[in-house]
């Protein structure tokens, strides 16, 4: 074994996982494309079934390789390969990654603001002589004026906005509380109080799962009772894409929290050395902040 000292930077051995994940992504992406190819060309129906299988295989490859990759990182961490120097790399890297995630959500928030402030009022504001949308009012929520698009007749229904003070308010409370419980768990970790740590993490996971259940109920309500779907014009598209991507991130975050919970139960992390815990906590707070944006701009205002 090589000697280790605090001022050596650990450069890991070669790793096959990244290149196999890329193959998994290629399989997943092309499978997806084959699966939906029928939408644009009826001749391609025969691609649907192989496409579905490619998606499943691709997703399995990716999950398994991420599992192995993270496993080797955890192993390196446990065998003391990482000192302060590597730790800082992970920290800065995680911050930059979260910034890029914020930019991704910014695109969808941008689309929401653009439609609400510019395109919907514009469509309603044209001179009656030139516009095909004579009765259209620029109210929000809007599913647009309707019309024939690419040969498909589009008839907007009347929409009610998803109210802010029902399930969404409960969801806000759940996520904010989970932000507090994970901080409570972090204090416990620093004080080396393992019972409180595991209790805090278990609570956080439970709150995350509760949030996802509430959101599933809300989607069910929207589709079955409100008639609010992905097809419901500007409001439907921005509502479901914003909350959907957020929900996807909460799902990922919950999976990561569960991994951290299991690691806590196995006795990983020390009061001085626990970037894995903190990285996931940061991610969780980021998900929380995005939710607050959603609550204000999608549900409330």
């Amino acid at each position, binding site marked *: 074994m090589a000697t280790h000292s605090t001022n050596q930077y650990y450069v890991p051995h070669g790793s096959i996982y990244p290149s196999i994940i*890329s193959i998994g992504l290629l399989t997943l992406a092309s499978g997806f494309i084959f699966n939906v190819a029928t939408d644009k060309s009826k001749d391609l129906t025969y691609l649907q079934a192989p496409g579905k299988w490619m998606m499943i295989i691709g997703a399995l490859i990716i999950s398994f390789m991420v599992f192995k990759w993270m496993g080797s990182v955890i192993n390196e961490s446990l065998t003391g390969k990482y000192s302060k120097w590597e730790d800082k790399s992970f920290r800065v890297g995680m911050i930059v990654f979260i910034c890029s995630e914020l930019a991704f959500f910014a695109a969808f928030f941008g689309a929401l603001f653009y439609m609400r402030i510019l395109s919907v009022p514009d469509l309603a504001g044209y001179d009656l002589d030139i516009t095909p949308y004579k009765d259209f009012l620029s109210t929000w929520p809007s599913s647009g004026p309707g019309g024939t698009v690419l040969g498909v007749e589009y008839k907007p229904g009347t929409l009610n906005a998803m109210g802010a003070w029902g399930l969404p308010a409960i969801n806000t409370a759940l996520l904010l509380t989970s932000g507090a419980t994970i901080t409570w768990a972090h204090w416990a970790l620093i004080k080396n109080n393992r019972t409180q740590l595991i209790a805090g993490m278990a609570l956080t996971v439970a709150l995350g799962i509760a949030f996802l259940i509430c959101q599933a109920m809300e989607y069910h309500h929207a589709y079955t009772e409100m008639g609010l779907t992905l097809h419901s014009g500007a409001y439907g598209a921005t509502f479901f894409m914003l909350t959907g991507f957020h929900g996807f991130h909460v799902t990922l975050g919950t999976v990561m929290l569960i991994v951290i919970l299991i690691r806590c139960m196995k006795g990983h992390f020390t009061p001085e050395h626990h970037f894995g815990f903190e990285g996931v906590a940061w991610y969780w707070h980021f998900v929380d902040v995005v939710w607050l944006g959603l609550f204000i701009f999608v549900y409330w205002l």
Partner: protein
Amino acid sequence: MSTTTVAHHEEHAEHPTGIMRWLTTTNHKDIGTMYLTFSLIMFLVGGSMILAIRAELFQPGLQLLNPEFFNQLIGVHALIMIFAALMPAATGFANWMIPLQIGAPDMALPRLNNWGFWLLPPSAILLTLPFTLALFGIGDGAMATGWTFYPPLSVQGGIGVDFAIFAVHLLGISSVLGSINIIVTLFNMRAPGMTLMKMPMFAWGWLITAFLLIATIPVLAGAVTMLLTDRHFGTHFFDAAGGGDPIMFQHLFWFFGHPEVYILLLPVWGFIPQILETFSRKPMYGYKAQVYSLWAIGALAVVVWAHHFFTAGMPVPALLYFMYSTMAISLPLAVLFFCWIKTMWKGSMSFETPMLFAVGWIILFGIGGLTGLVLADVAADAQYHNSYFVVAHFHYTLFAGGIMGIMAGTYYWLPKMTGNMYSEKLGKLHFWLTAISFNLTFIPQFFLGLAGMPRRIPDYALQFAEFNMISSIAAFVLGFSQLLFVYNIISCARGGKKATDQVWEGAKGLEWTLPSPPPYHSFTEQPIVK
């Protein structure tokens, strides 16, 4: 002061050989070599596509390609050149040179670095696969929307658009990973004593590039995701019937697309001053002014996007704002040009190939910048928009400003990377052929654009015939002269006159203190910078 000892792989560990070495490597030089090789291959692929287009445009009328295929080639040419040739070349240099320049043991996140590269071949497959599938009767070929994916055409298009959307996703992930790695490396891996304001200019250029990538690539990912859901899941982001707007896509796309220009150019603005100072044998002029100008350009880059579609329809105050903010970019850029020229002023200059490319680059990129000012003028743009003037303008910035800059960098660092000198005679021949044929290709296109020839059409009116003929002939000379470049690189990698450690007489910086080629593990002891 004690030196900082740096360990690499465990001492007894052997790295695997053959294909496994490249698939699994975590070494920044191996990964840099893969990026650069990939970039060169894709440069030739994208180049052959445009030669097919220029062959079709040699004469008016339709001779070789059907219009649909012509459009597909145009879009894929652009995506390949931007995402698979120019960006990987800059990232390749970053991988090779940033650790050497800042005295780091390696990039900060080596496995992520490996993944960043290995996302590229699958993306290249996604970009080109539709052509192959079409041969077997599956789908109708690649996307035919041009690289900008404008709806409603891209919402109507066939399977090729989906492939391009996912190719952009993978390329985006790759760029974000690369940027994370570079930011972390620059913040955390600098040698003791190397403060930010002592970093080489190339590191500065890349740091700002990486910030731009982090801010804008995810927005592109969001935009093409909306396109995907509009295509397949019934959303109405870009569809007026649902309250959306096709022009919103243009806003989202160019919020990424304009900073992308600087993403392609800032790394080059980083190393060109280093080449200039080396061959002028005097220190870089205005280091601080250059750093601040790079920051100013990086900041302005994200607030000027709408000048790409002045004619699409916008309120007049918005037009004015985007015109003035665009023109404001010329101020920091003028500072940079002044510093580059002043670096050479009264220097004891010699004109080896990298210097020839660097000086040629200043002039040609200058033409690209100045014609950009013309296009930034709202009133004038109404005439020039979507004409060949635009094509010529962005080839002066991206081919001359981007690719020729990359060539300067290649000749500059090739002896360091391979340990051998390239053939100076072939290098100079390559420069002159490239510079002359490049101008002969694109100067006629300025005239064509002013005379009103629109871009992205396979056929044109008779009055455009002569200029198109000149442009096509010169484009073929330009294309085939690049084979000299390839030959020169390959023969340099295989042997030749041994390079010294410093390689160039006036070269300064940590990378020139190491042997040529540098050992597999470069800095076993981190140098102290005073």
